C-alpha cells in the first residue's frame, strides 16, 4: 500500500466568536492573559470598544448576520465602569436583545455578557474556552439566507450611502 495517501479526516466544526471588550477592564484582562501566557481557544476575535455601553444590539445582530456563531460582550463589573454606568446600560440592552433572540430561534449560549475585571486574565481564558466548547456542541448558527438584494445595497453588505430625503 502506498504510504503517501492521506485519508480525508472529518473536520471538526470551529465556531467563530466575535467578542466586544471594553477598553478599561476586559480588554486589559485579555492583555494580561497574553502577558501571562494563558493559552485559550483561537476561535475568538476581539473588537475593542471604549465601553460595554457602546455595544449596540445592532452590532451583535450584524456579527451574527456576517457569520459569527456566537458573540461575547465583556465589560467592567457592576460599579466599576470607567464611565460610571455604561455597563448597566449594556446589561439592560443585552437582556432585551436576548429576549428577541430567543424569539428568533437563536440559542441563549450564543450571545453572552460577562463582567471581567482588568486583573481577571484567567477569566478571559476560561470564558473563551467554555464558550468555544459550548458552540462546538451547538454547531453553526443557521440563519435563513438573506435574499439577494437587487435594489439599494442593504446595510449588512456595506455602510449606508449618505442620502438626502425630500424635505416635506
Amino acid at each position, binding site marked *: 500500500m502506498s504510504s503517501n495517501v492521506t485519508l480525508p479526516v472529518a473536520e471538526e466544526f470551529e465556531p467563530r466568536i466575535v467578542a466586544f471588550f471594553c477598553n478599561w477592564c476586559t480588554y486589559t484582562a485579555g492583555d494580561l492573559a497574553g502577558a501571562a501566557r494563558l493559552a485559550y481557544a483561537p476561535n475568538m476575535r476581539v473588537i475593542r470598544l471604549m465601553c460595554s455601553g457602546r455595544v*449596540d444590539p445592532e452590532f451583535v445582530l450584524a456579527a451574527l448576520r456576517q457569520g459569527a456563531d456566537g458573540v461575547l460582550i465583556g465589560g467592567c463589573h457592576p460599579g466599576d465602569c470607567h464611565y460610571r454606568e455604561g455597563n448597566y446600560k449594556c446589561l439592560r440592552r443585552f437582556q432585551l436583545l436576548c*429576549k428577541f433572540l430567543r424569539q428568533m430561534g437563536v440559542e441563549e449560549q450564543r450571545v453572552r455578557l460577562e463582567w471581567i475585571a482588568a486583573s481577571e486574565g484567567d477569566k478571559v481564558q476560561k470564558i473563551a474556552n467554555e464558550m468555544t466548547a459550548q458552540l462546538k456542541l451547538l454547531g453553526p448558527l443557521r440563519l*435563513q439566507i438573506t435574499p439577494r438584494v437587487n435594489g439599494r445595497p442593504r446595510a449588512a453588505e456595506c455602510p449606508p450611502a449618505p442620502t438626502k430625503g425630500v424635505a416635506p
Partner: protein
Amino acid sequence: MSKPKVGFYWCASCGGCEESVVDLAEAILDVAAAVDFVFFPVAMDFKRSDVEAMADGAMAACMINGAIRSSEQRAMAKLLRRKAQILIAYGACSHQGGIPGLANLFDRQSILQTVYRDTPSTVNPGDIRPEASTRIPHGEVELPVLDEQVKSLDQVVPVDYYIPGCAPPVQLLKDALAAILTGRLPPKGSVLAPDKALCEQCPRAPSKPDNLLIDQFKRPHLERIDPEKCLLAQGFLCLGPATRGGCGWACINANMPCTGCLGPVSRTRDYGGAAMSALASLVNSNDEAQIAAMLETIVDPAGTFYRYGLPASLLFARAGANADKGGHEP
C-alpha cells in the same frame, strides 16, 4: 403631449395603501389631470394582459404596495419592474416587509397548518390545502404558491425609491408625485421622507425630561394617557426615538405612542436593534433581576420592535431547522 403613465399595484397588503391615495381628497383631481393611471386593480379595470402588452419602460412610474410572499406577487413585481422607468416601494410592507413580514417568525408549514386546520373557526375535515394546480371537470386550474418567507419588494426586484408608512402619510405621497412630475428626485435608493427621527421636533418634546428613565412599562389600552406629556416619560413604549419622521405625528396627536411604521432613518442598520437600544437603556434600574422583571412586561419584542420590518432586518427570519430552505432567488 401625452400625460405620463402611472401604475399602482398591490401584493401582500391590506388595502390601506390604496386608501391613502383616496385620502388625497380633492388633490386626486390634480393627480388625475397630470398623469394617466394605466394599471390600478383596486380602482380600475385594467388586466395583467394590458400590462404585458405595454412596451418596456412604458410607465413613467409604478408604485407597488404590499410584501412579496407568493409566486404570483414575485411574477407581478418582475413584470412591473420591466414596464416602469421608476419603481417605488409604497408603504411599510413593500419598504420593509410590514406586518405580513412577522410571518417570518414561523415556517410555511406551520402557517398553513394554523390557517387550514388549527384555528377554532376552521372546518376542514378533509384537511384540504391549497394546491398549485388542481384538476376539475373543466380542466386544470392553478393557484399561486405561498413562499417560504415574506420579503420586502427590494429583496425581489431593484427598487428606485421608497415611500414609507403604514399607510404612507398623504403629504409624502403628494411630495413624491410632485418630485416625479418635475423630475426633481433625490439619488436612487432614497426613502422619500425626511431623514430625521420622529422625536426631533415632536410637539411633546418640551415635556421630555433631560434624564429620561422609565420605572414601569405601560400598555396604552390599560392606562389613562396624558395628552400633553411625552409618552416615553409616561412609560409607554413610544418608538419615536428610532423612527423616521414625516408622518406629522399622526399617532402622537391621536394620543397613541409611535409603533415605528416609517422605519429607520438612513444611518440605522437594523431598525429593531436601534429601537431596542434606545428603549432598554431607559430602564430605571441597575439590578439584574429588577431589569429582567421590567423587561418581562415587554411580552413580544419581535412584534414590538420589528412590527413593520422583520424581513428587512439583519436576521430576516427565524433561525433554525428551516434555514437551508431559505430565500428564493429572484
